[in-house]
């Protein structure tokens, strides 16, 4: 028993240490990003970047700041989402209750499911910017494409709004815009990241649960975490090789 308690103590200690070093590194990382920001993207070289996204579900508080920031930054129509947050409440018997009221744009209200909830967490979602993406492969007009730096975009002038990509995306990341009638999705805030700015959702997250990394940047913290920590991608069996990784995500999450 005592051994167990000691082991638990050591575990918590290690966890605390890891969290601390993580935060320090994050602060340094943020400093570096600010220095590099020139806010002009004419000289941006896409061969020097390879973006990767990291969501730490253990930190997410479900405030929906990311959803609000994304909606404003990208003028996303009401009740359509480029990123959204789901809430999982799981009972001891494994009964799942999942909700995401209006994509969590106004956060969450307490919810009594009537079950004996033993595990609950928030699950932020966005386009996974897959390496082998079905949405690009089946676009009949070459409107969906993947940039050299790893961002999936939709050519707004080329798209005919057939909706094949919306059906093909296993993560539900795309929608047909109700006014323009063409496919719309997360652009990884391409206009911001090419200017050295943080994505709207990353900048808005108050707890550092969302981060953007760059595999081609030396000493990149997110790349380091993905390389050394137990991370998870959504629906790995589909072999889409998502570039959005999850830390601490429970297996019930879909």
């Amino acid at each position, binding site marked *: 028993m005592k051994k167990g308690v000691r082991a638990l103590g050591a575990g918590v200690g290690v966890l605390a240490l890891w969290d601390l070093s993580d935060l320090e590194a994050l602060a340094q990382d943020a400093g570096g990003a600010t220095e590099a920001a020139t806010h002009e993207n004419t000289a941006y070289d896409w061969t020097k970047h390879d973006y990767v996204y990291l969501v730490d579900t253990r930190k997410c508080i479900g405030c929906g700041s990311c959803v609000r920031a994304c909606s404003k930054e990208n003028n996303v129509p009401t009740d359509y989402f480029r990123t959204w947050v789901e809430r999982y409440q799981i009972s001891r018997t494994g009964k799942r209750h999942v909700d995401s009221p209006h994509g969590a744009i106004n956060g969450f209200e307490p919810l009594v499911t009537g079950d004996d909830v033993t595990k609950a967490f928030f699950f932020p979602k966005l386009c996974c910017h897959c390496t082998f993406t079905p949405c690009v492969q089946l676009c009949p007009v070459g409107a969906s494409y993947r940039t050299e730096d790893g961002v999936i975009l939709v050519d707004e002038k080329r798209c005919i709004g057939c909706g094949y990509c919306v059906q093909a995306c296993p993560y539900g990341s795309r929608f047909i815009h109700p006014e323009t009638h063409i496919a719309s999705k997360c652009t990884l805030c391409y206009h911001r990241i090419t200017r050295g700015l943080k994505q709207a959702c990353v*900048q808005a997250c108050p707890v550092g649960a969302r981060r953007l990394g760059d595999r081609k940047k030396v000493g990149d913290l997110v790349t380091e975490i993905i390389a050394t920590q137990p991370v998870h991608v959504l629906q790995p069996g589909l072999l889409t090789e998502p570039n959005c990784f999850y830390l601490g995500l429970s297996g019930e999450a879909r």
Partner: protein
Amino acid sequence: MEHAKHIIRAVLLLVIAAVGFVFVRHFAIPASFGEHGHYRFDSVAEYKSQAPLHGAPGACAECHDEEAEAHEEGKHATISCEVCHAPLGQHIKNDEKIGAMPIPRSTEWCGICHQRLIARPKTFPQVVFPDHWIEKGAETTEAVCLECHDAHNPSEEDSADTATGSAPAAPK
């Protein structure tokens, strides 16, 4: 050469078809298509030209240095100004003020982060409304949270109070 007529006809048809194909192709395929893959490369530049609405970190402090200083010292330092107020682009354009920023003071707003939810990490400070402010004897006003807490810099004392007084319960 008794079939010359037929051959000329066939060749002529082929030439017309080839010219027609090149002609239609020229207009059907947009400029810059295929430069870097099976897509229109100009689309990338179109995405890059979108104007950012949210500002760079530290942009607010250029004018609001007092608030920024208080904010940097406190527990809310990790929260971008634009989370509670609004994107910088709604306030400043070409260094000119174009609109007022919202200042949310409602309990509902604070509750978006601090209302107790079982899905929130247990270490995150959270309370039950309205129990918390009834318990603290705060007056029931619209801005009841701000009676005790400074939104820019919630003090250590406030935080300690919140942590001990209303520690989030483990899920049953």
